[in-house]
């Protein structure tokens, strides 16, 4: 069978799931700066699927690709700690303000340069929940897509995917190259490998190197250098990036403010709960 060359698409996101009280400002809105940056959970599931294929077919090569600011190099390190072969950080000021379509354009150009035969991404990212980037990239690459995947296998040069329907399960088979998005029902990702963590903990990008000035390590161990690509490296057309490349515009953002309503407080004891239930039965809410 053909050697698998996989690109995993991953995104660094603010952890919107755990907006604690300390992340709330006095006016009841969210202080986005106070949220930790994490590896998007479903992209972790995508990474696990790639790693499982590599467990089975050890000559598989996995590249993790992320687009974001310099600190998104963390995503690549997390991939290296778990067994990917290399990573690329797509970073450039000109990417800023891109909507899903402009993001897909940039990612598709980077993928064309890597030339994989399998692309695996998380279904959606928790900051936007759009689930659009995967299919939009597949269209830009003019290849098939399989969304909502639960598991992926490789047989006779075909990719076989079990995927979720709204009301069931479907198994489909596709030739390569193909792009697959993995949902939350797939296996969660393995933990970091201790040996790989030791091996790659100094992995960094050129920009990080300038801050740390420890390039002697990279000179000795060139595999620690994380590749950075900008607009020129992927031959992108500026007009199709950032705000100008984004058909959707944000007209207005309203912060959600929690407004209190008078609620009746009941304590956890038989008498008070009994009284409440009698009231609910009498006013026909239940019964």
């Amino acid at each position, binding site marked *: 069978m053909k050697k698998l060359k996989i690109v995993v698409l991953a995104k660094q996101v603010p952890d919107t799931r755990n907006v604690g009280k300390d992340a709330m400002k006095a006016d009841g*809105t969210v202080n986005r700066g106070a949220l930790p940056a994490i590896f998007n959970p479903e992209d972790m599931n995508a990474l696990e699927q790639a790693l499982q294929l590599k467990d089975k077919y050890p000559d598989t090569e996995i590249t993790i690709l992320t687009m974001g600011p310099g600190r998104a190099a963390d995503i690549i390190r997390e991939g290296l700690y778990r067994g990917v072969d290399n990573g690329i950080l797509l970073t450039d000021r000109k990417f800023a303000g891109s909507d899903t379509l402009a993001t897909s354009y940039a990612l598709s150009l980077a993928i064309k340069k890597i030339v994989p035969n399998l692309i695996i991404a998380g279904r959606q990212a928790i900051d936007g929940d759009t689930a659009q980037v995967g299919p*939009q990239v597949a269209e830009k690459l003019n290849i098939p897509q399989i969304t909502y995947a639960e598991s992926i296998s490789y047989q006779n040069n075909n990719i076989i995917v079990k995927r979720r329907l709204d009301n069931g399960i479907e198994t489909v088979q*596709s030739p390569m190259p193909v792009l697959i998005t993995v949902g939350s029902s797939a296996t969660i990702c393995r933990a970091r490998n201790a040996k790989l963590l030791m091996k790659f903990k100094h992995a960094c990008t050129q920009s990080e190197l300038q801050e740390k000035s420890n390039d002697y390590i990279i000179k000795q161990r060139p595999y620690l250098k994380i590749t950075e690509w900008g607009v020129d490296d992927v031959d992108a057309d500026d007009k199709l990036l950032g705000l100008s490349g984004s058909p959707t515009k944000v007209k207005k953002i309203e912060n959600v403010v929690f407004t209190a309503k008078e609620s009746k407080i009941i304590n956890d004891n038989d008498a008070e709960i009994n009284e409440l239930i009698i009231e609910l039965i009498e006013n026909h809410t239940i019964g």
Partner: protein
Amino acid sequence: MNNISVFCEIENGIVADVSLELLTKAYHLSEKLNCKLEAIAIGNKLNSIPKQVFPYGVHKLFLVEDRRLEFYQTLPFTHIVAGIFKESKPQIALMGASNVGRDLGPRVSSKLNSGLTADCTELEIGDFYDKKSDKQYDNLLYQIRPAFGGNIIATIINPEHRPQMATVREGVMKKEIINKNNIGEIIEVDSNKYLNSTDFVVEILERHVEERSINIKNSQVIVSGGYGVGSKENFKYLYELASVLGGEVGASRAAVDAGFADHARQVGQTGVTVRPKLYIACGISGQIQHTAGMDQSAMIISINIDKDAPINEIADIVITGDVSSVVPKIIAAYKKNTK
């Protein structure tokens, strides 16, 4: 004037509720814009589709019948829908935010290079003045949706690109017959006009569909659990309460992600929107992501150990205590008083 187009999802010859809900919404938008409503139906054996959709005010129905297209497949559906859009040039195109719509929508938008907004909770018509280019846009589609885990509500517009595309989840819009005698025009489309042989490279090997056994959307009483319920095991209290009250069990995204409950039970922005008579939120903290899908409930009871949980601010009644202690007391009290 360019029209509004709705992609109709079909399973076993029946148009999905989400598509009928969108047709209703789209009809009202078309009245505001003084344009017509179009629908697209793709599948096998579509003879009963016209009578299903015309009462919702459809003016023009594109019927694409092909026995190869009984089940949704990304590539052929993309090419047909994009092909029809290129010719009929709708100003707005809507589809359900179902697994099908969320697979098809982005693919079509990428092909046509048009903007798409996922999981809208409101759609309105309005104007926009762009200061930068000093340009005035009239009658744009305002695509309103929560973002950032539901902590902000964003209004998105597509000033330049057409169609303005949006997906909406089932249950968010209301389905309503506009005129039961309405008869529109049927346009039969030959799928081969848009397809080529490589569109069928992805093969369906096996397909297993379950009848929707869980239907929380139509339940009058919903007992819903969050991460605070603690375990899958503890959900048994919720099932028991739901069963004595004749209701259904719902869950927050955190509970579903933790494996406490099935995804079909998820209430909220990325789940189902519900409006029951009574919503009992057990161990749910109340992120907007969740409350967006249940805050229209007639009465909300929150059971939470944390008396400051955000959900308590929208609850009518707050019971401060642990779910595994409070719920059995409610069950006992209900049984005692209804004997």
